């Protein structure tokens, strides 16, 4: 009889029969793919472009064949791993006694065109890395390229020339170099080709990018990152004064992200700008003159499935999971770098080529396998947390299942406190549960006991959009603390059912937000009145273009627009605006109460009001509003001032201020810059010189913002909302997988063999190239072994561990242990399971409150007296790592004190 768990894990796969009839006999858990994904679908091309020698292909996986007597197929990529099994290429290659021999044959006929796409028809002088994605229609393919400038060592004239020469001397190429199948094209024909393919290009000189060298000075490049700024940020208001809203830390993370990626700040250098392709292992003083000469591009070309639906699915998957793909591409790049450096040390040319090919093929094998695994691996079909928050009707059933599984596991590992240890580790490192228990200070909308959705975050998302997928990825990896750490959990064990049980339980504690997708309904897309169709017959007729209004008062026109937006009556009452109303009357009619609780409530209302309207009573006192108001056009500033009741009285004054004072100051600065810029640019007339500037002067640009634009209504916006499927919450919570995988926030495996091989380098890679797109201080992995009932934490920071073990054992937090025990005992006493889960949440909230006291305690201490903590705060030494980690999500200073 199948266990409940087996049913749970297989539910989705079985239920999904309509549409894709999949064979569920082997894989009980769902996965992305609806059909086979062939490894040969992924192709790698490495190209270089240099001034002297033109464009050269340094690697093309399509042109490489394996010479192996025992394997007649000669190309391992032709034999995709079987569906239920893992893909083992990488490890096999390295385990073999003798490395395989490869033959480099004529490159495919499309490399020329592909090279053109990789580098573009006009090369850029920009020295950072460039990312490109192309869609090739026939045969349907996606190409992702990264173009790097090269960095040489000082000793070698270090280049790929030697490699190139080796290729040629090894005689595997056809000696004729025609326009088809060129591997190395003499520079003259290449130029011709380039020109002919880009006859439309205005110039074929390198396009000179305006350099911003000066602004990069004094900027470590990481200052902009959300996480680092949050580290620098002062902590949230102290609890004595008020309770910040529950979502404060999530809010702050998202807000900083929206600012860090805002267009209104213009482009800004970030932490990984200076990424280069290294052709030497020496940490060399790079010669800037050399750098500009050579570029290396790495392209991954993925053949898309022929069938329309599969094609669509894969593309949706690819684009929503791009950060993961990119991270693995970076890994591939590092391997190619190493291969080039290593092979150069080999004198004999045919051997040199073999070493190079071998290494790159191995890295490619790894890349293919990872992508294959990501796409094909089994997933937890019903992650507890996500299911609970998305389907409230089934809540009771879910709670019951969850508690049942948890008590079974508790009994199983009772002696070794396995579950307590595991949850201690998970709660310490996958920190996204913290915001979900931080008490909300807003009145509940539905019932008291259901967690409310964060309204402030919702409001933020609307007015300052950020990427919810990014936020979710950070949640899953637990990157909420400060400094930012990312964590994954792997459950190892040969008993499938047991591992699945552990995974199921952990899918409650490893949390993330749920995503909803809002798209136009199918029919709507074809509708001629669709807003994306500018030539529909019924397009809105704007104010007739000929009747230009009399030059208006610079302030008035925007004022009326804004007033409309701000007037609560014109916008059918959202709760926020009502709040603001009550707030205003409140503060006037009554004495402000100093009672902690009541002032909190009002404070929140006030904040809500401000957030909505963007009004800030102390706009003069600096802060971001001030900066924004200064740097953006006057329009912005004007808008900012009107809305606030206090400012409307001095409207004229505000106008004077922005129009004259600020404008003039900026103007002067700009003039100076302009002069120097013109002088600087006179000699090196840029290729972009003939730009289209029909507007007259600087002054006009500024004045123009005070014109009244014709106002048009925003087209109505009919969307269908549905649960998003292509998100990390669905894709990174893995099931019982055939093999260890580096991306999953959670997954199970039967053997830790490969885990032991790869984990350390994976963690190091994560720190260097985090998929999260922000700097990461440390990467961790929790390894729970259900056979040995042990829980260890492996970190990127400690290489060596005693006794050849992977990581360190986890100390069981007493608070966590009592928390689980208490919830399970209630369950054992036959109390309704949804109450037990509520109790569990209450107890988690206690952890949060304790972390607040710990943070407050640490604020005033230079030394931590563990005994004092125990007596006064009920915090034992075993709880400190957990509570400190929790505290770092709301009080960044904690990390600094404890370090």
């Amino acid at each position, binding site marked *: 009889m199948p266990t409940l768990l087996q049913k749970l894990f297989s539910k989705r796969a079985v239920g999904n029969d309509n549409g894709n009839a999949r064979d569920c006999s082997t894989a009980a858990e769902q996965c992305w793919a609806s059909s086979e994904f062939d490894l040969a679908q992924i192709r790698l091309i490495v190209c270089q472009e240099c001034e002297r020698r033109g464009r050269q292909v340094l690697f093309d996986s399509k042109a490489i064949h394996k010479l192996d007597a025992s394997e007649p197929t000669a190309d391992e990529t032709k034999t995709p791993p079987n569906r239920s099994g893992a893909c083992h290429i990488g490890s096999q290659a390295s385990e073999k006694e003798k490395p395989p021999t490869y033959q480099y044959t004529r490159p495919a006929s499309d490399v020329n065109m592909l090279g053109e796409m990789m580098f573009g028809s006009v090369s850029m002088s920009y020295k950072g890395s460039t990312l490109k994605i192309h869609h090739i229609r026939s045969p349907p393919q996606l190409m992702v390229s990264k173009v790097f400038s090269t960095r040489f060592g000082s000793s070698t004239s270090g280049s790929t020339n030697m490699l190139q020469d080796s290729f040629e001397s090894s005689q595997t190429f056809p000696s004729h170099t025609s326009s088809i199948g060129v591997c190395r094209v003499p520079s003259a024909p290449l130029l011709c080709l380039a020109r002919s393919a880009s006859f439309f290009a205005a110039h074929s000189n390198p396009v000179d990018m305006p350099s911003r060298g000066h602004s990069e000075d004094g900027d470590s490049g990481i200052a902009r990152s959300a996480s680092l700024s949050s580290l620098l940020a002062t902590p949230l208001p102290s*609890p004595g004064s008020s309770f910040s809203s529950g979502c404060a830390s999530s809010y702050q993370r998202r807000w900083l992200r929206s600012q860090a990626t805002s267009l209104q700040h213009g482009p800004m250098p970030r932490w990984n700008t200076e990424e280069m392709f290294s052709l030497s292992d020496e940490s060399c003083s790079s010669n800037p003159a050399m750098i500009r000469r050579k570029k290396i591009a790495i392209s991954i070309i993925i053949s898309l499935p022929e069938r329309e639906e599969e094609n669509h699915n894969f593309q949706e998957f690819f684009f929503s999971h791009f950060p993961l793909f990119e991270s693995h591409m970076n890994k591939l790049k590092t391997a190619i770098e190493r291969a080039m450096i290593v092979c150069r040390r080999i004198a004999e040319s045919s051997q040199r080529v073999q070493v190079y090919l071998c290494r790159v093929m191995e890295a490619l094998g790894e890349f293919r396998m990872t992508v294959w695994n990501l796409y094909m691996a089994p997933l937890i079909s019903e992650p507890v947390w996500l299911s609970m928050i998305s389907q409230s009707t089934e809540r009771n059933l879910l709670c019951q299942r969850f508690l049942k599984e948890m008590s079974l596991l508790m009994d199983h590992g009772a002696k070794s406190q396995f579950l307590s240890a595991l949850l201690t580790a998970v709660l310490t490192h996958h920190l996204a549960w913290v*915001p979900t228990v931080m008490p909300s200070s807003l009145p509940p909308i539905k019932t008291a006991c259901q967690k409310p959705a964060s309204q402030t975050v919702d409001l933020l998302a*609307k007015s300052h959009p950020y990427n919810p997928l990014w936020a979710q990825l950070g949640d899953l990896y637990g990157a909420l603390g400060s400094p930012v750490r990312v964590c994954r959990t792997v459950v190892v064990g040969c008993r499938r059912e047991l591992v699945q049980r552990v995974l199921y339980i952990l899918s409650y504690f490893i949390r993330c937000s749920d995503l909803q997708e809002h798209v136009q309904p199918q029919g709507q897309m074809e509708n001629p009145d669709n807003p994306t169709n500018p030539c529909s017959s019924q397009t809105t007729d704007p104010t007739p273009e000929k009747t230009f209004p009399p030059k208006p008062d610079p302030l008035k026109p925007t004022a009326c627009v804004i007033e409309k937006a701000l007037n609560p009556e014109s916008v059918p009452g959202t709760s926020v605006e009502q709040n603001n109303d009550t707030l205003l009357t409140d503060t006037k009619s009554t004495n402000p109460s100093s009672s902690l609780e009541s002032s909190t409530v009002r404070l929140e209302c006030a904040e809500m009001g401000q957030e909505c309207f963007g009004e800030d009573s102390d706009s003069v006192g600096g802060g971001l509003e001030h*900066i924004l108001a200064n740097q953006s056009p006057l*329009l912005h500033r004007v808008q900012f001032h009107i809305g606030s009741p206090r400012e409307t009285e001095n409207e004229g004054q505000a106008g004077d201020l922005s129009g004259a004072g600020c404008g003039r100051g900026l103007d002067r600065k700009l003039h100076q810059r302009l002069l120097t810029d013109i002088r600087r640019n006179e000699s090196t007339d840029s290729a972009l010189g003939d730009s289209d500037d029909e507007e007259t002067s600087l002054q006009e640009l500024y004045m123009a913002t005070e014109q009244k634009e014709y106002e048009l209504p925003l*087209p109505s916006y009919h969307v269908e909302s549905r649960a998003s499927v292509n998100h990390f919450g669905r894709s990174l919570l893995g099931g019982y997988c055939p093999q260890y995988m580096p991306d999953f926030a959670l997954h199970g495996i039967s053997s830790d063999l490969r885990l032991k091989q790869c984990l350390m380098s994976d963690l190091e890679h994560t720190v260097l190239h985090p998929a999260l797109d922000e700097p990461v201080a440390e990467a961790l992995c929790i390894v729970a072994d259900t056979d040995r009932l042990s829980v260890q934490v492996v970190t990127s920071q400690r290489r060596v561990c005693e006794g050849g073990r992977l990581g360190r054992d986890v100390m069981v937090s007493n608070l966590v242990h009592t928390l689980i025990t208490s919830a399970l005992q209630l369950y054992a006493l036959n109390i*309704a399971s949804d109450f037990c889960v509520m109790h569990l949440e209450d107890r988690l909230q206690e952890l949060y409150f304790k972390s607040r006291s710990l943070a407050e305690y640490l604020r005033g201490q230079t030394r931590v007296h563990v005994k004092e903590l125990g007596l006064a*705060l009920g915090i034992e030494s075993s709880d400190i790592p957990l509570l400190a980690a929790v505290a770092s999500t709301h009080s960044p200073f904690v990390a600094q004190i404890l370090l």
Partner: protein
Amino acid sequence: MNALVALCHFCELHGPRTLFCTEAVHPPSPSPPQPGSAIPGDRDREADREGEGLTMRANSSATQRADMCEGCRSLPASHPGFVSVDSETGIRYLSHQHPRQPQLFSVVRQACVRSLSCEVCPGREGPIFFGDEQHGFVFSHTFFIKDSLARGFQRWYSIVVVAMDRIYLINSWPFLLRHLRQTIQSLQDTALKVFDNEQCVCPQRAVRMNSAFSPAVFPHQRSGNAARSLTSLTQHSNLWASLHSSFSWLLKACGSRLTEKLLEGAPTEDTLVLIERQTEQEEEMSGWDCAEGGGSNPQPSQSESVQPKDFQFDDGRQEDLLGPKFKSLRHLRQVLGANDFRQLAWHVLMGNQVIWRGADPGLIQSAFNVLKALLPVGCVRAVSYSPHYEEAYRCNFLGLSPDVPIPAHVSSSEFSMLVDVLNVERGCVNPVSDDDILSLYQFNISSANTQPTDKGPTLLNKIEVALSNENLSVEVVSLCLLCLKEEWMNKVKVLFKFSKVDGRGKEDTQKVLALLGATGPGEEDNVRLLKFWMTGLSKLYKSHLMTAVRGGERTLTQ
């Protein structure tokens, strides 16, 4: 979406040009949790960027102006542009030929040039993504528009979406492609109709084949033809307004394509109770307004319903009162001494009526404020200063003026305690500092209670440890108290569910008490505390548990 959309054109005479650009201007940022967290060095860099943005303009502006043609232009120079305001979010979508924000000018220019003359798209029509950290990231879709007068009978355009958030832009590829294709299709179809019409009237191919080719005349002819604008190619007089609407819609739709459902913790019981009281009070007020014409003040302390208000505005009144005050529990403990404080706190926690009688309402008020922190908000019913005795069911904190007599049934009850605040006899010539309460007053504590107050409850024992440890700041103590209260409130919830909702028997209840850690020394006090605190649960919570009972048939058993 944190992006802008631009329509670009490769002019046969002037090269790549930006024709029309729609940007989203976000309202001034909502205040971040800490304004201080604004990205450091931002301001300086901003200034740099503005300078840079104008570099390219400056290079070229005046000298190249003559080189403009109709094909390179969208709105006439005098046109103010378009704006659409999203009233819900305050985001303004602005369209002009070029972005208004100078730092974006060069970004868009880059995107335009790269999209039309650097990057290679197979087939020349289709999507590409490109970009880097310095110049921003671009989703570009190139396409042809039919023009009977153009070379090859077509002109080359692109729509670019520029953003700094590389990941989101890539995530949005399928969405953008789907919608931009539609926009492009619509432009192409319209232009094709115009083209076909023009070809009917005057077939250009024939004209060109028949006209003698003369190198001298050729450039001249062509420059005349190159001047056709997109408006003329589509015969759409409101083209730019429509494009503005399309692009604005695209930015909005793409920005809100994905939304997060992010949960936060349920509000604490204290928050819920406060909200309930506020609501009640508002209803009460509006009731009075109706009855009495809105002008009169509610009479204080007369009915239970006023008490929430009383509770809330107590503190405000206190500020008005001069004289010495208790500042914290620790202060109160120092003044009263450990023994008296223990007794007092014990009575407070057990839910007994605590009466303070004295001549200084400010002092009494401050004592209540400090003591109230020991209890959940829902358990606090205070009458801060009254000219006559109020019954225990009305208030557990009662302040009285010195001459008010305490009824006998109260003074003999073990469920009440009295603190008499007596003025110390001394000459009031030299003013004493407010801090020195003991030099002004003497406190007499009396109660008919015979039970020991030194065993429990556990909560009190822990609070005393924290209070007596001078190493802990007042803030730490108050957080510690909060932790303890929440911890015990959670036990209260379980007990409520267990005994009141499910109506379990004694034996089971004992098990739950053990499980909650309420047994052992001080058990009796712990149980009393739990029972008292149960009365402080919010109505919302209680009714939720009651209705959530399986089947909804069970009723209150106790």
